[in-house]
């Protein structure tokens, strides 16, 4: 067993070939058994055979943990004793307030910045001959991990004291362009660091938003746009009174996607500040409660807060799904 566990090639063969073949074989066995049963019983049991594996996974990895975490949020650090709402009280006082405050900044600024920039890009790219090139360039960062994105941006945000050569792109650019500019310690200044890290997230994920909005913009009736222009409406007017109302559903998708990303943001903060300089966020705090404080109660309550905060988005999605008529 051990030789299997540290051999990448063997693991890939087992996971990518062996298990899928096994799954297919088990489906075959299941179908054989169904065929032996009376027709009606077979018909009724068939969905169970096919849905068994997906459902078992969803129950094990998603449903059971949600229930269990909610339970643990009412327990003490070792998950042994019931403590009522103690963890909830802890979660809304002291330094947790700053942590939650930072997440609120993330949840407001990231979606807004993403939507505004993505709208500009989607509308403008639509009018240039080199749209594909521009789109590909905007899409490149979406392939990169948030960890790599954070590492890449250390070069943008590097800081040297005033007077010495600036190695960071922003400080160098601003020092050269703005007379009397004093270099900013982007990642060590409270609030500035949160906004600086939000910009990294915008850079990483904007391509997804542009793709979604761009597809919506191309669906807007061209004749309607032309008619409005002939009537003398300027481009801004055309955008706000014709394009924007039509693409509102797509804008909502972009907003909720960005909100979810902001809510559970972890990698960028973990790599760049690890929550120092008043930049901590909920998901990073959960990580330190789990691994440094080893407090299951606190970790669970933080997770429940994340879930509750995500609930409006969940409900919005469900409502949207139902209105589409299955």
């Amino acid at each position: 067993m051990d030789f299997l566990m540290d051999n990448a090639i063997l693991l890939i063969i087992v996971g990518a070939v062996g298990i899928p073949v096994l799954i297919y074989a088990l489906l075959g066995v299941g179908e054989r058994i169904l065929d032996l049963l009376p027709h009606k019983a077979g018909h009724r049991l068939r969905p169970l055979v096919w849905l068994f594996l997906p459902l078992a996974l969803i129950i094990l990895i998603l449903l059971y943990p949600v229930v269990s975490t909610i339970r643990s949020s009412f327990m003490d650090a070792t998950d042994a004793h019931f403590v009522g709402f103690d963890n909830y009280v802890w979660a809304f006082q002291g330094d947790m307030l700053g942590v939650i405050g930072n997440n609120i900044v993330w949840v407001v600024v990231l979606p807004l910045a993403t939507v505004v920039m993505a709208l500009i890009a989607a509308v403008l790219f639509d009018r240039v001959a080199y749209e594909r090139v521009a789109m590909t360039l905007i899409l490149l960062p979406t392939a990169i991990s948030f960890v790599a994105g954070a590492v890449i941006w250390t070069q943008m945000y590097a800081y040297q004291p005033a007077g010495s050569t600036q190695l960071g792109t922003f400080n160098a650019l601003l020092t050269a362009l703005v007379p009397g500019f004093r270099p900013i310690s982007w990642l060590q200044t409270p609030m500035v660091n949160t906004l600086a890290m939000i910009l990294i997230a915008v850079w990483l994920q904007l391509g997804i938003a542009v793709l979604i909005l761009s597809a919506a913009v191309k669906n807007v009736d061209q004749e309607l746009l032309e008619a409005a222009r002939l009537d003398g409406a300027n481009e801004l007017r055309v955008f706000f009174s014709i394009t924007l109302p039509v693409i509102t559903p797509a804008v909502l998708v972009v907003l909720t996607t960005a909100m979810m990303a902001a809510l559970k943001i972890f990698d960028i903060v973990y790599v760049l500040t690890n929550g120092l300089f008043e930049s901590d966020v909920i998901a990073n705090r959960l990580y330190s409660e789990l691994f440094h404080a080893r407090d299951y109660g606190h970790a669970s309550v933080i997770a429940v807060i994340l879930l509750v905060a995500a609930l409006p988005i969940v409900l919005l999605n469900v409502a949207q799904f139902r209105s589409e008529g299955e």
Partner: protein
Amino acid sequence: MSSRQNARRARGWSWRWLVHIITIAMSIAWFVPILGLFISSVRTQADTADSGWWTAILSPYFTSKNYRMAFDQIGVFDSLATSLAIAIPTTILTTTISVIGAFALTRMRFVGRAALSLLLVALLVTPPQITLVPLLRLYAAVGLSGTIPGIWLYQVGFTVPYGIFLIRGFIGGIPRELFESAAVDGAGTLRVFSSIVIPLSLPIMMSLAIMQFLWSWNDLLIPLLFLGGSPMAAPITVELASVAASTSQGQGPLMAATFVSALIPLLIVISLQRYFVRGVLGGAVKG
């Protein structure tokens, strides 16, 4: 009238320039950090400590030393192997299990089908953090901690609702007559699945596979939490995060390792852009 037309034309002209300027500026701005990464990865340690990466554009002097150090000292090769050992099986298993689930959900009738669809939609945006405390303890109890299959299990289970959701619409679009004529020919369910559903769903399965590969390859949280104590090297994201925190290796090798880590997903997105776009547009939101 003609003066108004002239005014419109003049305005149109300046508007068009504005469109080009903003589009080009944005494209360049989005590319600059990646360019900076690459340039820093081929500059000497002394240069990097002395001047910003952009100075190398005017006076290029490049070295491959950072890449040698990334492979020799940071152990990038082993980390890439671990990342592949996680991402490839996760991708194939997610796609396989999702297409099975989507097929059952769209083509079979059973009690609670509508409720199950709604549950899947709700689970699409569940934050992964809610699952961590119980699963860490469960993994420790059953010996899955620090194992690669444990990561497969998590990443597959977490993405299956999204996968089913993405493929579902596609299978729903397969013409009913195909299934009917297969039934007339006496084809069993497994036969229908493997000779109609799979071949016709290949494009969307490809999209799901790409999305899942990128997600798995780029994931930090799950391997960071669940892979501690593994005999294998840390996957590339975990490795980068720890090298970035230590700074003892220096800027150059870190940038080289980061560039290597980004190369595989970048090549995938560029070469398979069509499928990637379909995956993005079909799935919308994932937790």
